[in-house]
């Protein structure tokens, strides 16, 4: 790929990001819906179940929980990504995009761009919400921003998973049904709600190697929140895995998604 082409691919992706953001502006009720789920998680797990939950070492369960909720919100955003790509792929306007001299990847990178921007918005709301229930970052702003960066990196990777999913099941209704049973076990078998060392051995091992756990553990570490550490290699190298897993996912899934899109309806 020449520099010129790469330049246009970026520009076109950015233009498509703008298009997708305009869609969001035209249906703000959808955003409200998005925020309500994670806020509910904070309240339900923080207050209702939280009183009965243990945290390894010391510390408040709510402070343990919040980084997990941040990451979980990123995971559930995948459903929206998938169904919007499916909607897009089924729309007549795709024919128009295909007949324009624009980068082939732009429909997808534009989706990814818009979804990451939206994730940033969601994260801001969650952070405010977290501050209200007593969550704090304790190791300085620099580390906190790094944590946010890692969470967004995971979101980028999940966006591509969502895009591939949306292209494989090109029916928006099916997509939303499929995403929950995929996403729920992933959060359940992670360190989002419970520290892996409190789980039975083999479950703990699965949870420790879960890509979600890597980002959650890294974020806890960088925010200075409780519940870090553990004996497994994965838990010891949370930062490394929090970069490694998403990068691996992007490297594998993004090209598959682009190829799938190019083959679609041809």
């Amino acid at each position, binding site marked *: 790929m020449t520099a010129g082409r790469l330049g246009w691919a970026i520009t076109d992706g950015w233009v498509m990001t703008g298009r997708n953001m305009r869609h969001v502006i035209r249906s703000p009720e959808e955003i409200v819906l998005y925020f309500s789920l994670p806020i509910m998680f904070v309240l339900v797990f923080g207050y209702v179940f939280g009183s009965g939950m243990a945290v390894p070492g010391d510390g408040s369960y709510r402070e343990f929980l919040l980084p997990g909720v941040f990451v979980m919100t990123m995971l559930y955003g995948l459903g929206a990504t998938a169904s919007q790509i499916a909607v897009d792929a089924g729309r007549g306007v795709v024919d128009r995009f295909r*007949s324009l001299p624009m980068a082939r990847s732009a429909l997808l990178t534009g989706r990814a761009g818009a979804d990451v921007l939206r994730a940033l918005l969601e994260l801001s709301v969650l952070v405010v919400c977290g501050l209200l229930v007593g969550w704090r970052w304790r190791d300085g702003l620099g580390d906190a921003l790094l944590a946010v960066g890692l969470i967004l990196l995971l979101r980028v990777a999940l966006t591509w998973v969502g895009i591939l999913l949306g292209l494989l099941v090109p029916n928006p209704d099916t997509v939303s049904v499929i995403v929950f049973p995929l996403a729920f076990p992933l959060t359940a078998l992670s360190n989002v709600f419970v520290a892996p060392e409190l789980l039975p051995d083999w479950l703990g091992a699965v949870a420790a190697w879960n890509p979600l756990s890597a980002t959650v553990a890294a974020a806890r570490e960088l925010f200075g929140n409780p519940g870090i550490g553990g004996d497994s290699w994965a838990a010891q190298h949370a930062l490394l895995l929090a970069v490694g897993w998403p990068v691996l996912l992007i490297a594998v899934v993004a090209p598959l998604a682009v190829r799938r899109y190019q083959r679609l309806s*041809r």
Partner: protein
Amino acid sequence: MNHETPAVVADGLRKTYGRTHALDGFDLTVPAGSVCGLLGPNGAGKTTAVRALATLLRFDGGHARVAGYDVTRDPERVRAAIGLTGQYAAVDETLSGRQNLVLFGRLRHLPVRVARRRADELLDQFGLADAADRSAGTYSGGMRRRLDLAASLITRPRVLFLDEPTTGLDPRSRNGLWDAVRSLVAEGTTVLLTTQYLEEADQLADRISVVDAGRVVAEGTSAELKARSGADRIELVVRDAGHLPAAARVVERVAGAPVTLDREIRQLSAPVTDRITALADILRALRDAEVPVEDVVLRRPTLDEAFLHLTGHRAAGARERAEVAA
């Protein structure tokens, strides 16, 4: 592109869907700067051909060049040179008309300011200025169609593909579109349009290719097609229906061909080979037989009849009209 290079060349295109041969050795050459009409019944393969030429569809066999570039090997150059308005509107329903045109302009790599200005011009030209800021999802079918057309004209395309462009347009919008096409052609754009309306092909196209079952079955100007598709006809109206059988016997004998009768309007018609001689002979024979004739015309076959002759079945529009008449 120099003017000897045809704007569109399709050479033996094939495309199968399961057991359907949507394109079955489709050949077409459209000289630069001309308007080519693809005429064919439902399912003939017109849309498939257009989508293949516009790089939207991978075909199974054959070669195609558009604006001098190979469609399979150089699709990006082809896309930069073409405009496409497909059979079904391809606009973003969530965005407003203006946002749509600006978006497509930017994706054609116009600077923002130029894209905005061009969008305004097109909204005016296609009578959409009042609805410019409403989301396209709220547009009527005809308005969406016009927006779709505007979207294919953001930069002046060298080759413009229009798949049934006037379906769903009212007569005024249709005339507007025809004018827009004519002025583009005057500036050098080549147009390939598909239609089921013989009138539209007759009006706009320099040459018409009749498509049936995935291939071009006849090609020529509309006059050539009419001439090629069978003989002229004589049509006679007799004074009262009681004279029809006698008249039919006379005409059949003189013309040497089967006669078609229409009792309602007391008309009979028959194909003739030598127009003037046949006219004189028939009228003389009728006078000798004392059959009073009220009216007589000689006419060339209509494009409808040409179509029927060339494909062995009627054009869709004609079929509908025939059903209404029955």
